[in-house]
């Protein structure tokens, strides 16, 4: 799966889709692949405020667990609750149905990578 070019990427393997004042966050195809079959996703609570780079949750597979870092600053306004029962959506559809968090941006995203730069990072 190639990384959509309309998204921004963090070095910690999260993606960001900016929609005006808001942004949607998830983990990349590369990240879900490295973790293997995802069994659980722990997300922040609606109303939490996040700083850029702050830990916001955990993704677990059988033999690994990986912290999630918020690539942007803002307030959580929604989380993908369907992941509670079907965490496999992160494997099946990382950029769409496997989205994780929607935030109201406190500042425009900074220091993130383009799809091309992110692909380069993954190949290193």
């Amino acid at each position: 799966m190639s990384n959509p070019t309309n998204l921004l990427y963090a070095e910690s393997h999260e993606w960001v889709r900016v929609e005006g004042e808001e942004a949607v966050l998830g983990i990349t195809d590369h990240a879900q692949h490295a973790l293997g079959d995802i069994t659980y996703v722990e997300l922040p609570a609606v109303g939490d405020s996040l700083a850029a780079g702050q830990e916001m949750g955990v993704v677990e597979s059988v033999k690994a667990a990986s912290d999630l870092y918020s690539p942007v600053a803002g307030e959580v306004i929604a989380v993908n609750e369907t992941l509670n029962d079907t965490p496999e959506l992160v494997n099946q559809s990382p950029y769409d149905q496997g989205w994780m968090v929607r935030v109201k941006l406190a500042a425009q995203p900074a220091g993130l990578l383009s799809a091309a730069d992110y692909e380069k990072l993954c190949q290193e």
Partner: protein
Amino acid sequence: MPYIPHTEEETRAMLDIVGVRTLDDLFADISPDMRPKSFSLPAGLSEMEVCSRLDSLAAANHTNVVSFLGAGFYDHHIPKAVDALSSRGEFLTAYTPYQPEVSQGTLQAIFEFQTAVCRLLDMDAANASVYDGGSALFEAGMMAFRQTRRRKLVIDECVNPIWRVMLSTYTANQHCEIVIVPHKNGTSDKAALKAAVDRDCAAVMVQNPGFFGSLDDYTELFTHARSQGALGVISVYPVMQSVLKTPGEMGADIAVADGQELGMPLSFGGPYLGLMACRRELVRQMPGRIAGRTHDVDGKTGYVLTLQAREQHIRRSKATSNICSNQALCALRALIHMSLLGPEGLSRTAELGMENLRRALDRLTSIPGVTMLNDAPFGNEAAIVLPMSAYELADRLTRKGYVPGFPVGNYYKNMDNVLLVTCTEKHSREQIGILCEMMASELRGGM
């Protein structure tokens, strides 16, 4: 040498293959200045000699007494099949079930243990056990910290004082606050507990029966805790739990217990096991080993350790706990014990103890100067007030072969005359009669 099978020839051949001359050459990395300054242990003994040494050490303990000592740890009859089955080498000498294909015995037993614990405590999920009741209480507190992101525990003084000391030892560097709510004459001060549970509180912790034996219903307290966003944690006694209102019925979030009385001998303090169960929503906060049911590649049912991503070998410094084992063999014993007794056997055990205690107390409280500490309902343990030091009385009777109970004065201020008396199914009418007579005559003489 005991348990080393190598012959001299084999040793020589093996050293040759390794490419060294002597056994000590294998330790060339340890330089001469790092070698032991001393290693003067006695010479080894034959098996017979060791056994007879242990025989005489065992005989130096006063176990040939009739005891009414409990205080959280009870002498029940353990069916002989518990020893026979749990000492099978296939259970005894296996490791933690890391290779599930060849550990289904241990894993299925853990799954069944979890089920039995949940049904006894009336909770949704249980782990495979932790070290003991005290560490279970501590882990429950840590679960509450993680779940609520608050750092304060409110704990009833009626919770076993030994576990409360453990809790403060274990949390000493946790940057948290522990509020102890004083007991009211051996019973929970529920109004004060309720008042102490505010919006900073992570959990309220109570015990039923309380340390003094009193029974209570904490439903309202737990409802209040929930309204404040705090968890309700309850510690119980497994045998009495077979008849008492359950943690689930009271609306507790986490239930813990020391499982000693489910088939563990007293053994001077261990090994025991801590039971730990919770509501479904809290499962991922629960520490320790957990077994789950799944299927193999052919679709056959099997069991594995699951939710391991919470654990230390994956999460390292971010793990839910540093615990990396359970008291597997003790959990197995508890499971076998519960299976042999069944629901009827466990309730009978509780009821015989209750009946015996009532028989004893009827007579003890007719001794002039002896009264009940309070009029709260009780199960198989209750506190009485003596007209003299309970420690002194216990000492005098113990010399005569009867341990009348536990003097609580070491753990509670101004309670030097309070004696905690326990009965189990093992006490006979005759023994109870003798205890009462001895106590009566001692108190007449001692006053």
